[in-house]
């Protein structure tokens, strides 16, 4: 088996790091958003729903540009975070993670929301009549029931984050070891005369990672579903 060059390792490791944090940190927010969208009845719900789905519909370059204007060094949110908390996104891997998280968010929320909507409300009602309060009911009844959806949503988001390119390169450019993720490295190689072999190697790696994530998601979701069914 051919070994990876240091540059290839760097791009792959960076992509895994960016995608991991993008998924891990957006999961609680995604769960809450899905819950609000599935259960909540309030004015402006369709606006929230639209906002959540916006990155799915907008061209990634537009999302990246909006992130740059908002979270960049001179953007209102970016300047505030930098001045008060020392959090900087521009040209950092954290910015790549932010871009990946935003792009993957709709997929995560959709998967979780569907699983919440599929929960039999009578089970939750039963827990209520047995004396559990709403939070406890959510933890011991709802959460286990929606776990396959949560896992599927997280893995889907991870896979999407691994592949994010347009918003990332627009927001944080392509800096080796900092923001040059796997897709950016592939794009870079395709732009060099004679760079096709390297581009093809990285492409195969990207395909392998994506397939592994999807197969893992199927496997985990099925196991969890069986465990819930068998009680």
């Amino acid at each position, binding site marked *: 088996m051919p070994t990876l060059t240091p540059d290839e390792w760097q791009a792959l490791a960076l992509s895994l790091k960016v995608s991991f944090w993008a998924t891990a940190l957006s999961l609680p927010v995604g769960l809450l958003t899905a819950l609000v969208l599935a259960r909540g009845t309030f004015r402006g719900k369709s606006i929230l729903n639209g906002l959540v789905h916006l990155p799915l519909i907008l061209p990634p370059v537009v999302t990246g540009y909006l992130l*740059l*204007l908002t979270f*960049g*060094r*001179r953007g209102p949110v970016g300047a505030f975070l930098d001045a008060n908390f020392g959090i900087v996104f*521009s*040209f950092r891997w954290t910015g790549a993670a932010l871009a990946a998280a935003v792009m993957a968010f709709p997929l995560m929320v959709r998967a979780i929301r569907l699983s919440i909507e599929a929960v039999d409300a009578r089970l939750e009602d039963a827990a209520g009549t047995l004396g559990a309060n709403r939070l406890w009911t959510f933890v011991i009844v709802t959460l286990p029931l929606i776990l396959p959806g949560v896992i599927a949503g997280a893995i889907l988001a991870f896979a999407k984050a691994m592949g994010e390119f347009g918003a990332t*390169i*627009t927001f*944080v*450019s*392509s*800096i080796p070891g900092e923001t*040059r993720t796997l897709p950016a490295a592939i*794009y*870079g190689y*395709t*732009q*060099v*005369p004679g*760079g096709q072999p390297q581009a093809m190697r990285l492409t195969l790696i990207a395909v392998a990672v994506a397939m592994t994530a999807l197969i893992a998601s199927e496997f985990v979701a099925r196991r969890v579903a069986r465990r819930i069914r068998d009680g």
Partner: protein
Amino acid sequence: MRPPRHRQLLAALLALCVTAAPPASAQDVMIFAAASLKTALDGVAAAWSAETGSEAVVSYAASSALARQIEAGAPADVFISADLDWMDYLASWGLIDPDTRRTLLSNRIVLIAAGTDAPPVEIAPGFGLAALLGEGRLAMADVDAVPAGRYGKAALETLGVWGNVESRIAETENVRAALAFVALGEAPYGIVYATDANAEDNVTIVGTFPEDSHPPIRYPVALTADTANPAAADFLEFLGAAPARALFEAQGFTVLDPTDADAHAG
């Protein structure tokens, strides 16, 4: 059952999708041009259309991306590259018509700073670029692939400062994206073509790189080997005519004379 009103609306929407964007007519000349030409070439294409009544459609991107697309069979009639390498690359595959090839323009690369009143920087061997950048980034087009980035890297290497700033560079997929990072104040400095800097009000040219610090910046043009559009040759001719010349020069390009150009075509 769905009210018929909805069905009509749906049908109207579908019809709109099908008809809204008329496909580029076969008579339109399709030009693939380096991103750095955008401002000037938009004007040239409009002038040519006004004169001949034919339409010119220009697709702008990094020369590298365009060359790859032509290699993959994109329906371009004219290719204008920002360096000789990508034109040579297509020539080596027989994808351009060698008899039509000539070197049209030359350009300079400059150091730009964010804002409208940045102090000038003396660009000389060993100049303190790293100190200027501090914690900030130097925005450049991809230094291995995109011509503007390659010229910039060559110049910094010649001047002996590449090693100091190599880790501080934010690479973009084309030169206009590097310009945008500086214009937004995201990166304090950047290296772009003089013509790009002229097209953007929110940046200042703080220094021009010596012409002998990097390979000469030449824009070769040629018809593609596959073009079947008779208007394409006319457009190619028009690029060197007086009205086009004036537009290119207004943007900061130097228009090379055919004899002069041949001497550099290499």
